């Protein structure tokens, strides 16, 4: 079965010193490290596992600048067979609608049995792209899959719903499925693994190649516009207890009593 998997390069913000750039819309990125979006890591792993089980081919797609190539390399190292980089200055500032359009043009060119996306990206957390892509491709979609199995031309997808319930649905292929983290254990990508795919050709497509007008994507085509990026104001109410363990425990109990919890 042939699978398309969509990936994104995102900043790794754990332990990072986050500073908002002077434009108030982006992060000061001189010290930031970038990585494959965590959810996409699970999506690539799911795609590669399906390929290992059923045969076929995995093609990875990303929309992003030159640096975004590194997440495609990572997907290749994990076992994707081909990678396609949608790279055009016009994509800068795209909202999920713009991204979904670019992906739809690239993916729609070919025949896939399944299109996998990470459920959300850690930097945008809108979770729109997968759904919009499905709509643009006119394909059925299941979101937030926590288990996925393919039987012939159908897929059985499990996803979590409120109350800790699990829902299992059947969906006709081709379909778009967005993957929740934890669906599998993504394989480790070694330095050697990355080096082995360093020489693989990655097809680069610009707006023209996709038949897109630069006004449809990027800042120009965005329907959702970022107004401000801000760190939440530091809240009050935190108190660090001091003293010996006994003293700290006594104070803690007092505080809980004061709040009426005991």
């Amino acid at each position: 079965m042939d699978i398309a998997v969509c990936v994104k390069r995102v900043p790794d913000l754990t332990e990072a010193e986050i500073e908002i750039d002077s434009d108030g819309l982006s992060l000061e990125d001189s010290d930031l490290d970038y990585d494959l979006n965590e959810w996409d890591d699970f999506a690539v792993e799911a795609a590669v596992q399906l390929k290992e089980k059923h045969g076929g081919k995995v093609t990875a797609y990303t929309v992003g600048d030159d640096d975004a190539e590194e997440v495609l390399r990572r997907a290749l190292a994990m076992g994707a067979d081909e990678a396609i980089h949608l790279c055009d200055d016009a994509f800068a500032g795209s909202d999920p609608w713009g991204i979904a359009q670019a992906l739809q043009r690239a993916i729609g060119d070919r025949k896939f049995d399944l299109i996998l996306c990470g459920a959300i990206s850690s930097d945008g957390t809108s979770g729109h792209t997968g759904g919009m892509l499905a709509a643009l491709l006119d394909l059925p979609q299941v979101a937030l899959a926590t288990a996925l199995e393919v039987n012939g031309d159908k897929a059985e997808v499990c996803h979590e719903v409120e109350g800790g319930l699990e829902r299992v649905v059947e969906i006709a292929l081709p379909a778009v499925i967005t993957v929740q983290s934890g669906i599998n254990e993504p394989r480790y990508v070694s330095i050697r693994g990355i080096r082995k795919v360093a020489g693989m050709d990655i097809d680069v497509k610009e707006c023209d190649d996709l038949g897109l007008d630069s006004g449809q994507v990027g800042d120009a085509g965005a329907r959702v516009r970022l107004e401000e990026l801000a760190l939440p104001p530091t809240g009050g109410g935190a108190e660090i207890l001091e003293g010996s363990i006994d003293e700290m425990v006594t104070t803690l109990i007092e505080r809980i009593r004061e709040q009426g919890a005991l």
Partner: protein
Amino acid sequence: MSTPIQTALEPATTPLFGIPGAGLHGALLVVTVVALVWILRKRAALLLAAAPDPRMDRIGERLYALAKIGFGQWRQPRYLVAGLLHICIFGGFLVLLLRSLTMLGEGFVPAFSLPGFDGALGEFYLGVKDWTAVVILISCALAAYRRLVVRPARYHDRHAQRSHSAEGLIILGLISLLMVADAVYEGSAMALEGHTTWALPLASLFSGLLSESSPATLERLGLGGFWAHNIVLCAFSCYLPISKHFHVITSLPNVFFMKLAPAGRVKPPRHGVEKSEDLEKIGVSRLEDFSWKHLLDFYTCTDCGRCSDVCPAYRTGTPLSPRMISVKSRDEAYEAWPIFGKRPAADSRPQLVGEVISDDELWACTTCRACEDVCPVTIEYVDKIVDMRRFLVDDGRVPATMQKALSKIEKRGNPYGKMGKKRGEWIQGDEGEADVRILEPGDQAAWCFFTDSAVAFDPRLQEIGRALGQVLSSAGEDVGTLGKDEVDSGHEARRIGEEGLFEVLREQNCEALAERKVGRIVTTDPHAFNALRHDYELERPVLHHSQAIQELIQSGKLDLQGIEGDRTYTFHDPCYLGRHNDVYDEPRDVLDAIPGLRRVEMEASRNKSFCCGGGSLYLFHEGESEERMGEVRIGMAEEAGADVVVTACPFCLVNFEDAIKTTGREGKMEVIDLAELVARALPESQPTNETSKGLGTAESGGLQE
């Protein structure tokens, strides 16, 4: 005194079943030699298909090892009873070798004797041989008693799917049969002459037992004893390479070819290949991927269980038992490369790494090297486990906990995921600033302190770094550090099997060092010490802080005062300081240089030390186990009567501080790094000023994931 070694019936000239004795004996030898050569060729075929491993260097040292560990049985007495029994049987075998050759000769030539053994020497040898046979028989009986009745725990591995204990009994039986057959052969001849002598106790015993028999019976018994001896001898030789007792043949060569490279140096992925990226495949996933020497190790394993007996992973109930790595691999080698019949198709065999040996077994190893240190036949484990992990890493099969830490090392140069630019911030502590400079490219310093990630970033462990700074500056030494230009040493990355990442890290650190003019490198982390010393090719001397401090004390630069409190100290040997680098005395010298300090030794000290649970990436990984290694070790320290455990490794410190908390020994026991202890013994740290509180007030705890 005439020695009645001549039986009335000479085996060489007495026909058996109508066939001349010598002819029949010739046939027996031909069949044996042909069978043995055939079997050994089958066994050798696997070694020939294996990866290269140059082991023909340093012949002098190899002969010395052969004499000491091989013929000298140097490592046997560590297990006193079993060791002495083995020494008796092994020594006896050497003595009886000549007797066996003589009896093979007697099959062809009546009254055969080896050159020079036809006179007094031969007579003397017969006496020695007969006494030796008694010793061997008693040893075999005791060994069988141990195996059947005493049943030491180490003989029965809890992970063993099948037992090879029966093979042990078969061999003991065959050895005893050899002794008895020879005694019947000789004793019946003596009985014909009615002769007994204390000089030949075993033969005389049988002579006495048989004295009532008729001469015809004695003649037949003598002939029977001879043939039984030689047939058993031939069968025994052919049985060895089929059973776990192949070691009788392979252990001396295995010792000769032992690893002479420094213990702490991990073998390259493939000998003769410089960079791991030049390899088509990295690591070991099949038997044939091992080096020939590692396969010879499997053949040589005697299944004695000493390795697992000392293995901290086995002791704490993890899936790992080093002995089973050897035993299972040998079982697989015997099945996949059989003596009889065709080799089974490769896809009909289980995967060596993954099925025969599970991923979890491999991840449970902390590479402490206790198993290698104890093995009487110098079997290597660390290199094999690292080789198999290299395959797992390449195949993407790394526990999620370690994946995170590895990718943080890759991105930010440390497993904590802290920003690399903050690597020098440890210098500034709450209690003051350490007298250590950040060296910029081009700067000079007599000492370069390589902190490695843990001491650079873990708040508790940063105290070790500052303590060393204080000690060195008290001795008037000029110390610098690489700051943000240092990255993780890659020691654990390499031992996890991530060779590519290790190579990148080594290059970055080597570059940072090359840009600065530093004299010697010192580190408080034995893992970094081992990496810099053996994995990096540095021209500068690398010292562990215990060595540096000992040197400063001996040269009179450091003046230590007594330490407050009436407490008992013990030193815990970190694996990568002790077993991997033979640094045992320096830290003890430092402790003994502190006036009035009372020091005791744990039973498992020096090379017998017990791993704390593993360092660096192992702090992030917690596999399945029943106990924690650190908790077991703290128990050992308490048993030795120690209140304070002194160690010289940041990871030991973290693991022991955790163990003290989790076992409810807080307030009763303490752990401290050597540098911290020495800092407290400095004249400027003495009471009257406020720094005296110190010891044990560290509340910050260890690593959190």
